[in-house]
């Protein structure tokens, strides 16, 4: 490789941004086609393309960062800013759902009976499963911090145990939410209450699944000795994301489950 007088990463040409963009287009148009014409061909195609892109792009990044040493301190700084901006955009994504919820619930329309929760809606008790969910996510926030300190102190066994525990707690949360969805006495078709509830908590659940996957990748990479005690940004990003998901849940719990019932 030619001598490089700066510490930045000059990325090689890659097909993944293009396939990712096509995947996103197919996914969104596929969803519309599915909703309107009940055909899943385009949707499946988009999903497959997106999953393949994700796998191969992230594989390439791991190769560049861990095995080729392209993630120098200034490059890591860029990755940090990128992750911060991404999480900020996610915050605004959820802000939209909270806006919809408060718009509908602070001044309920006459059609709902002028009250919140709307007439005829039996809500979930916030002090049963949702409280357990809160405890599970807060506990996973503690275990992920334990994992981070273990990595920084070079404690391999503890890092693997705590990371595995975090992922297990994530799966337990997903399982509890699925049970709650099945047991819920209202559905997504039950007016604006059902819409706001299931869209907000559903997207949160999706983010828990994404965060668990992210942490699971970190666990595999930890087992494969990818991380050093100083350089483990993949894990740090996953931990940031996990904390973000945790905080969104706290707001969901307080607003939709507790105040909204």
């Amino acid at each position, binding site marked *: 490789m030619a001598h490089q007088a700066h510490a930045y990463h000059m990325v090689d040409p890659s097909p993944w941004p293009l396939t990712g963009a096509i995947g996103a287009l197919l996914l969104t148009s596929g969803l519309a086609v*599915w*909703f309107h014409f*009940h055909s899943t061909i385009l949707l499946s195609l988009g999903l497959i393309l997106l999953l393949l892109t994700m796998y191969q792009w992230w594989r390439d990044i791991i190769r560049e960062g861990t095995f080729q040493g392209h993630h120098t301190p200034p490059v890591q700084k860029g990755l940090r800013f990128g992750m911060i901006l991404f999480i900020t955009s996610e915050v605004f994504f959820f802000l939209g759902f909270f806006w919809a919820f408060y718009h509908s619930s602070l001044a309920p329309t006459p*059609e*709902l*009976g002028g009250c919140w929760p*709307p*007439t*005829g*809606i*039996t809500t979930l*008790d916030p*002090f*049963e*499963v949702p*409280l*357990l969910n*809160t*405890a*599970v996510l*807060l*506990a996973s926030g*503690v*275990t992920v*911090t*334990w994992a981070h*300190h*273990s990595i*920084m*102190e070079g*404690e391999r066994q*503890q890092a693997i145990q*705590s990371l595995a*525990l975090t992922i297990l*707690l994530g799966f337990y949360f997903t399982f509890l939410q*699925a049970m709650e*969805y*099945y*047991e*819920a*006495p*209202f*559905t*997504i*078709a*039950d*007016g*604006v209450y*059902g819409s706001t509830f299931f869209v907000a908590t559903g997207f949160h659940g999706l983010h828990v699944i994404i965060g668990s996957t992210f942490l699971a990748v970190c666990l595999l990479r930890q087992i494969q000795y990818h991380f050093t005690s100083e350089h483990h940004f993949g894990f740090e990003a996953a931990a940031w994301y996990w904390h973000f998901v945790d905080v969104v849940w706290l707001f969901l719990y307080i607003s939709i489950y507790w105040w909204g019932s």
Partner: protein
Amino acid sequence: MAALARLSQALRVPLRVPLRSLTRDRRQLSAAAGHGHGEHSAKTWKILTFVVALPGVAVCMLNMYLKEQQHSHEQPEFIPYTHLRIRSKRFPWGDGNKSLFHNPHANALPDGYEGHDE
């Protein structure tokens, strides 16, 4: 009794250590503490996990279990409100009349609970 003896022994041991090695130990300790996040923070978080976080989850599980015991499982009376059970368009799955997490016991269809028809 044995524990008490062990405790008193543990308390007495440092007194026998010469002063010089004691000060050296302390210097090493303070040097270790100066390392950014501290040397034993993983241990702290491990303790927090097992003493605070997981027992917290266990308490909430118990709370959930106890509260679930008191539940009555009777269906609320079906009233065909216009703002509920909206079917402006078919769901893209199944027969298009049931939500994705449909529970025949808890979720009524637009014309009432399923069990009542049979």
